[in-house]
């Protein structure tokens, strides 16, 4: 009887990676499927079992564990992060003068992909006319010229020319005599409309892996002396938690 209970627990809670495919993928713990289990949704039970552990968090990325939640809802969060969280991005580009080697439309496309650090919650979506409640106006006016102080035989463009790199997005394309004079309107949008509005580079989730070693791996005797330390390198450098 104990073997059957253990199997049921495994079917209810685990996705199994077989050699040729993944088994037991779909959620089956709905009320009525397993006799003896009450699987009806209970918010308090969910709140009691649910927890979040932040693994790491820095300027540009974040990793955290969510325990006690179904993949359907975690996936909904992932989809929302990619497509429905609004950001600000450049939408209309008015090019007054562009004598660089980058074509107007290519330049406008690249400007649209630039991430703009403005809080979209302070803005409204734009309808037809622009006003300060829904648009940010940016300007880019830069001209490349020769650096009179460069030495005769240097070939480094950084020294030879002034303003040859258009910063805030390291695109180097200007040479002497070329200039850019552009006004940009920046509006609020969501990733579903255009991927430039997606606030994340990517968002993904995976199920927490459970790896069972079928036999102890030791590193005492040669030539197996390195087996155990190799195995140890499979794990990432996470500090072990007490729970």
């Amino acid at each position, binding site marked *: 009887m104990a073997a059957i209970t253990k199997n049921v627990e495994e079917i209810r809670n685990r996705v199994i990676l077989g050699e040729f495919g993944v088994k037991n993928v779909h959620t089956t713990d709905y009320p009525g499927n397993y006799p003896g289990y009450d699987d*009806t*949704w209970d*918010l308090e039970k969910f709140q009691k079992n649910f927890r*979040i*552990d932040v693994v790491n*968090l820095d300027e540009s990325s974040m990793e955290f564990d969510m325990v006690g939640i179904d993949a359907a809802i975690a*996936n*909904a969060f992932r989809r*929302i992060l990619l497509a429905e969280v609004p950001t600000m991005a450049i939408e209309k580009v008015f090019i007054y003068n562009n004598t660089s080697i980058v074509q107007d439309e290519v330049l406008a496309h690249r400007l649209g992909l630039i991430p703009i650090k403005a809080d979209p919650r302070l803005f409204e979506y734009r309808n037809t006319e622009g006003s300060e409640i829904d648009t940010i106006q940016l300007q880019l006016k830069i001209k490349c010229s020769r650096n009179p102080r460069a030495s005769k035989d240097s070939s480094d463009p950084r020294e030879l020319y002034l303003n040859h790199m258009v910063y805030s997005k390291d695109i180097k394309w200007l040479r002497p005599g070329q200039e850019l004079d552009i006004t940009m309107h920046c509006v609020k949008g969501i990733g579903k409309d255009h991927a430039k509005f997606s606030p994340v580079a990517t968002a993904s989730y995976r199920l927490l892996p459970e790896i069972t070693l079928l036999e102890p791996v030791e590193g005492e005797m040669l030539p197996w002396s390195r087996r155990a330390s190799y195995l140890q390198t499979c794990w990432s450098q996470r500090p072990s938690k007490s729970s």
Partner: protein
Amino acid sequence: MAGEGEKKPVLEMVQADGADEGCVTFVLHDEDHTLGNSLRYLIMKNGDVDFCGYTITHPSESKINFRIQTRGGVAATEPLRRGLNELSDVCQHVLNTFQARVNEFKERQEQPME
């Protein structure tokens, strides 16, 4: 169904003639797997529901057909309403927990520096 001119319907109900109130197909406009799958999961967890599923009728159209069949004579709109409320509660709880844990993590990160 207020579908005329600029106003587009958000939700429609389609019912087979003669069927009882427990078997209804809802057509949700401007929705996709984001709402469909998570709502389906929560409605399936409801004990009154016999069947719950959704399809995206065509990938070019952003609408889903969401079908609920209940047992025991319960009207199909009731599990739908309950499922939506429960989904909202789940998301609120996850948000609260997440914010608390992130703040905790940030504080813990600052402490070793002091």
